[in-house]
């Protein structure tokens, strides 16, 4: 029945041509099949793609790209679709090139500490595939159990442990890329550092899929640290918690992770899937992890404990074992989703501030919350000043979605005004295009689009992302009004 209905829909010549390239089992083009591709992790905005194709190798990607390019058909790449800023949303009825079938680990070279993966390979699978030899892949976004390394490259993904080990760009050694005209290029094809020439690895990583489609990635792998210790500290006063963060950094300790949650966030995670019994009346908690040579860690833990005590900590404890450590991290890493337990909808923001401005900006966020009459939970990477205000709202209430978006923008403005940035790891996508103006002048934005023009001169690849456009503001507002927010 369903099959017959599908066959009745028109199949245009582009679909037939793309089907020829990837095969009938690797293309979706009926409306009902495309529905789940109308947005990514940023669900406020939706648009339908022309088709979704699932190439199995670089040559198929290249052929499909060439086909689209020759016919002026917009296209974009998609990984697991976990992006939080709308980078994979087909604003222009794009052909979506999904890389999930290119999901293999191609090679691990332990001696030279590198692994070669296809873009659809899931982040956590890499660590799981090499952990038996004591190695891991460092960037660990919260969605690492599902997000792909190709997507991580596009977004320059971070994670809780990038305070010590750096974000994705610090771990990329080589790339194979299909340029928007279909040409296949290789950059540092065996992972050798500092290849002569401009740093194309650096400019491609974090370009949010606007410069090329990555089809192979060489990443650096690291040896597991000998030991890890995790500390949980509860503060009655959020200022004390923030000061403890500064004190730890000033003491010359570089923790592997230094995370903070405020009272509203704690309420959420305790009602979520992984409660650990945090008290409900504290203003802030810190989750601090140090790793390295076992002999050296004790001393750092002692220092951290004494810093916390000097800052009037109510309770501070060291994880007894891996099981307890795992529970604390599960509670933190599922923090965003846990907000669903205390609010029908939520909007995640991603500002960055200089660490020393933490108390000031948290105060500002509190006043934004009051002003917009929306609760804002804060879960963030305190060690590197990367804030994630979670704006809680109810889309069923007329006008509240709009209010939440405005409150989010106000939080980003507060970060920018404190000398910070509008995104630390989630990317600009479509979500923060206009907010780019908080930190860059028109000329600085033009300097960046000039680079895009070198790679993507016809702007067919992931058009309308990352950079503000003069006419955009009105359109988006209109769409938001028409779109119900769903979780």
């Amino acid at each position: 029945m369903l099959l017959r209905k599908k066959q009745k829909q028109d199949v245009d010549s582009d679909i037939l041509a793309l089907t020829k390239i990837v095969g009938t089992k690797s293309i979706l083009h009926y409306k009902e099949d495309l529905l789940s591709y109308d947005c990514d992790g940023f669900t406020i905005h939706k648009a339908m793609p022309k088709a979704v194709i699932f190439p199995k190798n670089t040559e198929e990607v290249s052929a499909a790209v060439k086909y689209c390019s020759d016919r002026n058909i917009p296209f974009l790449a998609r990984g697991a679709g976990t992006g939080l800023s709308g980078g994979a949303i087909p604003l222009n009825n794009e052909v979506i090139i999904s890389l999930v079938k290119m999901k293999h680990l191609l090679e691990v070279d332990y001696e030279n500490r590198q692994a070669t993966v296809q873009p659809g390979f899931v982040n956590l699978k890499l660590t799981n595939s090499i952990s038996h030899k004591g190695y891991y892949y460092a960037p660990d976004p919260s969605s690492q159990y599902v997000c792909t390394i190709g997507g991580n490259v596009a977004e320059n993904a971070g994670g809780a442990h990038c305070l010590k080990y750096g974000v994705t760009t610090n771990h990329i050694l080589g790339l194979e890329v299909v340029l928007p005209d279909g040409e296949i290029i290789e950059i540092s094809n065996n992972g050798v550092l500092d290849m002569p020439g401009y740093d194309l690895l650096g400019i491609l990583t974090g370009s949010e899929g606007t410069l090329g489609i990555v089809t192979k990635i060489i990443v650096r792998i690291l040896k597991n640290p000998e030991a890890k210790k995790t500390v949980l500290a509860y503060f009655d006063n959020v200022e004390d918690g923030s000061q403890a963060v500064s004190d730890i950094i000033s003491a010359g300790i570089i923790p592997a992770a230094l995370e903070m949650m405020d009272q509203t966030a704690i309420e959420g995670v305790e009602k979520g899937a992984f409660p650990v019994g945090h008290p409900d009346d504290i203003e802030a908690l810190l989750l601090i992890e140090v790793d390295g040579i076992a002999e050296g860690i004790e001393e750092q833990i002692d220092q951290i404990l004494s810093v916390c005590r000097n800052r009037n900590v109510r309770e501070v404890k060291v994880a007894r074992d891996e099981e307890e450590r795992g529970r604390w991290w599960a509670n933190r890493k599922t923090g965003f989703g846990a907000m669903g337990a205390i609010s029908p909808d939520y909007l995640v923001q991603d500002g960055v501030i200089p660490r020393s401005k933490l108390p000031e900006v948290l105060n500002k966020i509190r006043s934004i919350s009051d002003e917009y009459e929306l609760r804002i939970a804060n879960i963030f990477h305190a060690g590197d000043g990367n804030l994630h205000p979670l704006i809680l709202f109810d889309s069923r209430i007329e006008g509240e979605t709009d209010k939440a978006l405005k409150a989010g923008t106000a939080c980003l403005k507060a970060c920018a005004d404190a000398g910070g940035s509008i995104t630390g790891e989630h990317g600009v996508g479509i979500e923060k295009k206009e907010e780019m103006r908080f930190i860059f002048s028109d000329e600085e934005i033009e300097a960046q689009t000039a680079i895009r023009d070198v790679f993507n001169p016809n702007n067919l690849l992931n058009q309308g992302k990352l950079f503000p456009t003069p006419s955009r503001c009105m359109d988006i507002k209109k769409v938001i009004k028409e779109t119900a927010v769903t979780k």
Partner: protein
Amino acid sequence: MDNHLLDVASLTDSGRRFGNVSSKIVYPESEDEVVALVTEANDTGKKLSIVSGGTKLGYGGTKSDYDLTLSLKKLSGIIEHTVGDMTVTVKPGTTVTELQTFLGQYNQMVSLDPSSPSTATIGGVIAANESGPKRLKYGSARDHVIGMRVVYANGKIIRTGGKVVKNVAGYDMNKLFIGSMGTLGVVTEITLKLRPIPKHKSLVILSVREEALDNLKAFTKLVQDSLLEPVSLELVTPSMAKRLIDRDEYCLLIALEDVKKSVQFQEVWIDQHKPEEVVMTAHPTPDYFWKTFSELAPNSLTDVGEYTHGVLKIGTKNLDVFPLLQECVRTHHEGRIKVEASGGAGHGLSTIILSGNDASVVDAIQHFQSFATALNGYAVVKHLPSELRKELTIWGEHDGLFKLYKGIKYKQDPNNTLNQQRFIGGI
């Protein structure tokens, strides 16, 4: 505009020998002056060469007739340092030593260990993407630079990145300028991420005779696969070890930097696991050693021309540093040329210092370029008199990416105003 033309004898002398400077040198002291100079040059079709400390005149470029040289040497000093944020904003003409000395007062450092830190400036180090043995643990300029101000060829001031340690807003434009040899803009301000100075530092030196080099290689692999966290795993040839510590053997330099207990634990581990043939010593003054090490390679200020010197930067896979250095030793033993080399077995970057006559240096460079290519790596000439550079492909062969390099250069500097012909493929 007052051009601040000063007595710059040493720079013009080395300029004659190494190129990349004009007979007319200006020393802007502010960003406004840089803007005025660059704009005027760009509008009138003048060609500018950009220099800073003057240590890298022998690095890239074959053009000898620039209209004007813009030196950033007087655009120096710390602009902003926020201790708690562990970031510093500095002007490009600040020498690496000045910067580290300043930060040292706060127990912080920029974790870069390039050569010639007392004369090389942070602007030059970033433009050439210079790094040293400790890159293994600490990374390179591309890991530390978080923001810049750059004067584009059209005189526009463009800020890249920001002042926070984590930032993915827009393209990561900082990366374009790192290693671009000043061909894309004049950097007037740099913001860097800092690290605390390690609480304890040690340097373990393992030495072996040539016949036992395989054992040292096996041990290097063992260290890499162990729980140790070495800051460097730098292999040096006997000829270089002779100069450094008066020992005519291959040496592996393992820097350990952490809290004292951790460093001591690692020293003991190395002592217990090292192969029999290896002699282990702990250097009494690691900082002093690394300072000496950083001054081994000649640069355009120190190379006064008794011999002809060439310096190569070679990139290979990490462990290919072993066959590369063995080839250096073999060439050295042939007797036509002195070859000293060091290479990071944990990051794959090597430096080869050649000393001989013009012909032997050029021959050796070509030899090592093909040797590196055969290892699927590359060799770049970092230092050589300009006349000899003209005989060589100093950046190695360029590949399918050149079209993109040209596109980037054209977008940022369409008139070829800045450092014309300094970079790969004559960009």
